């Protein structure tokens, strides 16, 4: 563990547990747990979904980064990977699935279509999924290579690391 916020304690008050105690901030601990076990909701809508599958498979192996548990139930997922062209016919279904995901949740817009409509400047295609749901990471490419998706995932992990998760949670409890 090289993270500055996580330091191994050498407080020698009990020789049995000496060296096994970690002092940290709660935020850092929560974020560390969250970012290393992201459960993706694979919103595969077009050819990007093929690259998403490749990323999950043995050659690129997204489980090296703790995000291999693809869940097809939105209630068990924390990151929606919108992989592909979002047509207007599909748009409200994507929104509905997003709404069913429990907080905290994040969204990756994978590829040109999900980010901006891509080459489909047309009557049938939503011009970017960010018109309906908030997007944390945009990945360029048509489709992006698995390396790009992994880079996007690492960017999201870095973003999660900066969140004040405990504070946000506490505020929710007070208002509820």
């Amino acid at each position, binding site marked *: 563990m090289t993270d500055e916020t996580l330091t191994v304690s050498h407080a020698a008050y009990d020789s049995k547990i000496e060296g096994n105690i970690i002092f940290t901030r709660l935020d850092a601990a929560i974020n560390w747990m969250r970012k290393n076990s992201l459960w993706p909701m694979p919103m595969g809508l077009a050819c990007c979904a093929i690259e998403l599958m490749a990323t999950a498979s043995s050659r690129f192996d997204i489980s090296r980064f703790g995000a291999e548990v693809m869940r097809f139930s939105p209630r068990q997922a924390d990151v929606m990977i919108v992989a592909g062209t979002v047509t*207007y*016919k599909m*748009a*409200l279904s994507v929104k509905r699935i997003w709404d069913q995901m429990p907080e905290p949740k994040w969204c990756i817009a994978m590829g040109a279509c999900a980010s901006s409509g891509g080459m*489909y*400047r*047309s*009557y*049938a295609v939503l*011009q970017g999924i960010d018109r309906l749901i908030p997007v944390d990471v945009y990945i360029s490419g048509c489709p992006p290579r698995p390396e790009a998706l992994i880079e996007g995932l690492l960017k999201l992990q870095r973003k999660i690391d900066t969140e004040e998760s405990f504070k946000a949670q506490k505020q929710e409890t007070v208002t509820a």
Partner: protein
Amino acid sequence: MSIANDLKALGQTNPVVFRGETTINVGLSALFPILERCKELGYEMLLDISSLDHLGLEPRFEMVYELATLDDSKHLRVKTKVAEGVDVPTAVKLWKTANWHEREIYDMMGIKFAGHPQMERILMWEGFPYFPLRKDFPLAGKESMMPEVAFSGVAPLEGGPFVTSPGSTRESGEPRARG
């Protein structure tokens, strides 16, 4: 049987032959009997139905039926002109594959088919107010809203539509904004 004999059996004296492809033009009232006769003559496969929008001309629309024999030895194209608001007799009774082709044409062009078992949209949602492949429908689309079902918006074209033009050099053939 050659195509020439088939045309004789169909009573077609002036077919259009272009690059080995034979096309016959028939009136709307003669369309269904002709298609029926074609099937009897061995054109058992309906490859495709498409439609054209000749905006500004009368009649406005044109239907195109692509027929073939099962051994692929003969192809025949049947065309007919259709005025706006006029129904076309369905070909579902002859070829079941016509079902979805005709629904797509209804969805995209707004041509209705009389006698079709399920005359509904197939790609766009039921209730979408436009026919997007008509020539007077803008490429960028139009706004529409059906709460809880779907909505549509106008796509930014940024000076487009970008079209390729036939050109001798690679540079002049690249996509450019029209105009």
